[in-house]
């Protein structure tokens, strides 16, 4: 049989239409919970979603790691059901929002100060030295102040090059939050933020970019998300904390920082940088889930809150396997008690 061109086209189109019209509607409708935001905790969130979907088959998650800023914006415009952010929202932002936004701390992370020195000797740093390095004041590894705190190693005469993140990032927020706390000069000249005006050094994109620069540039020093520094086998420094001890970054020392940080503001937008505990690693920060206190869709909100409760209890065990620090029990209880009841 020969069908002329135009008619075959018509047949093709009409068969498509018929297929769409007759096809059964897509499977049983599960509530799809949409989230967007920070990329720093994404590996853990992804694992949490997968594990929780196995536990509760009636819910599905969709999370876009578009960055903290994007997460905050999308929550404000009610495009997503929850946001995720590494930096707390400013006070001014929630006022433009349709309702009060809750900051729920999920886990904490730390920045390691990784470096490239011949022979990779162990390095110790004090807060004022870290601040002066990143302010561009210490420009050579043979600086007397570095030698003073590292008497056991022979530091070479090598130009010191600061490597920082060029992209806006929660890792940068944690680091600049720390520097603003330990150096009044840093706080005055630079300040804290996910993207800042760096006084010195070169910018590299992403943790992998910073790690790549440090690896290939002798004399480089930069901050990396702890998990990244550990996985890339870069040497990283012990940093002196408030109590005067040199502490190695690890999930445990970050949890200690969390345990010793006071809940001063009444909500959970707390900074855990430069914590007072004797074993606390000072360059650490929280990452938050952002939700509306009175969400428009109650059914979804109930499911979401159940998920948050699970993350803060059973889910916490997954954190340390990915080099994130779980919340200490006392903080966890307070967060759980603060979660709103939605019926």
């Amino acid at each position, binding site marked *: 049989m020969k069908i002329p061109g135009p008619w075959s086209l018509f047949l093709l189109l009409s068969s498509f239409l018929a297929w769409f019209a007759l096809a059964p509607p897509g499977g049983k409708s599960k509530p799809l919970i949409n989230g967007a935001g920070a990329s720093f905790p994404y590996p853990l969130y992804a694992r949490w979603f997968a594990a929780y979907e196995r536990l509760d088959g009636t819910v599905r998650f969709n999370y876009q790691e578009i*960055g903290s800023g994007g997460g905050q914006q999308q929550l404000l415009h009610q495009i997503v059901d929850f946001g995720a952010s590494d930096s707390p929202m400013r006070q001014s932002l929630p006022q433009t929002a349709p309702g009060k936004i809750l900051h729920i701390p999920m886990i904490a992370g730390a920045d390691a100060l990784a470096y490239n020195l011949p022979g990779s000797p162990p390095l110790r740093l004090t807060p004022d030295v870290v601040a002066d390095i990143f302010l561009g004041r210490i420009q050579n590894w043979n600086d007397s102040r570095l030698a003073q705190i590292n008497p056991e190693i022979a530091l070479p005469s090598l130009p010191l090059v600061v490597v920082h993140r*060029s992209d*806006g990032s929660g890792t940068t927020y944690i680091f600049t939050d720390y520097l603003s706390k330990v150096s009044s000069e840093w706080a005055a000249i630079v*300040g804290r933020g996910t993207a800042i005006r760096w006084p010195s050094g*070169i910018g590299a*994109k992403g943790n992998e970019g910073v790690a790549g620069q440090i690896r*290939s540039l002798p004399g480089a020093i930069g901050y990396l998300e702890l998990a990244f520094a550990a996985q890339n086998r870069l040497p990283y420094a012990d940093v002196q904390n408030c109590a005067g001890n040199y502490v190695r970054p690890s999930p445990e020392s970050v949890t200690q920082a969390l345990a010793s940080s006071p809940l001063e503001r009444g909500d959970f937008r707390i900074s855990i940088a430069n914590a007072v505990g004797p074993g606390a690693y000072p360059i650490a920060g929280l990452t938050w889930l952002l939700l509306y206190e009175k969400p428009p869709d109650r059914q979804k909100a109930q499911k979401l809150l159940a998920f948050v409760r699970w993350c803060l209890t059973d889910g916490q065990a997954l954190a340390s396997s990915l080099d994130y620090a779980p919340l200490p029990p006392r903080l966890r209880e307070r967060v759980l008690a603060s979660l709103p009841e939605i019926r």
Partner: protein
Amino acid sequence: MNDFQPDPSWEALPLAAETRSLTHSVGIGRILDQGFGFLAVGAGISVLALAALLGWELYQGAEEAIRRYGMGFLVSSHWDPVAGRFGALPFLYGTFVSSAIALLLAFPLSVATALSLTEFAPVRLRRPVLALVDLMAAVPSVVWGLWAMFEMVPWLRQTAFPFLQRFFGWLPFFQGSIYGVSLLAGALVIAMMITPIVTSLAIEILQSVPLTLREAAWALGATRWEVMRVAVLPYVRSSLVGAGVLGLGRALGETMAVTMVIGNRPEIFLSLFAPGYTLASVLVNEFAEATSEEHLSALFEIGLTLVAVTFVVNSLARLLIRSVPFFFAPRPLRTESMETSG
């Protein structure tokens, strides 16, 4: 010709019958014809609409920054998201300088490659090399960036830059400390990325030169070099400039690879060894994590600026192309013909 009669047996061929039914200006053929016309016009309009929508969206996003900073945005070099001060001059400078250097390096290289392939190399070589060039044009930006970061930058730092500094260190462009990542490294990676595209275009262009032109030059006793100079290049000069402009357009908007090697420092240094920043790089770096309204708005204005810069550069280049034939193209032919006759 008019006494041509179609063979009656053609009627039996299904193809002929179908063609006839399509070409008839009545019935379904006419409807399809008109439908296609509408579709084509619609597609044409949608491109314009898309461009307008892009401009409008960017303008809306940037409105706050435009109101707040005015012209200061384009002439200030202070970019501080924490303090809420935004000036785009270092990005403009970095974009122009890196693209200009890249084009300066890539254009002669591309044209030379194309000439050697079309005029000198054996024809057997042409196809494989052409395929290779096209393959290079298809390499994703991020792959170039990774290669540049791990292979090119260390080589620049250890070998090329010290060499340049040793012999040309008296120039302000090659002074200061060497990190490897720098404005020059960014320019080099852009040059490498646009070279395959410009080369590919230049080869196409050179192949379009009519054989008769070449033969005429040969017949006048021209050498290979003279054939190229007298017959080939004048014929394609404006098209070659057009190929360069396309390369420049790509250079201005090049993002990922540049971001990985340029050092991302929003300051203007005279030295090419110092880190720099481009408009596209700051967008890709800061857009995702911009939390404040003024920061976001300033980034939108950066996007608007980038679109404007690309538009202006393309328009200028178009004007240049239009003026090129009048100023350059006919002259070599004429002088040459006078020389040969005289």
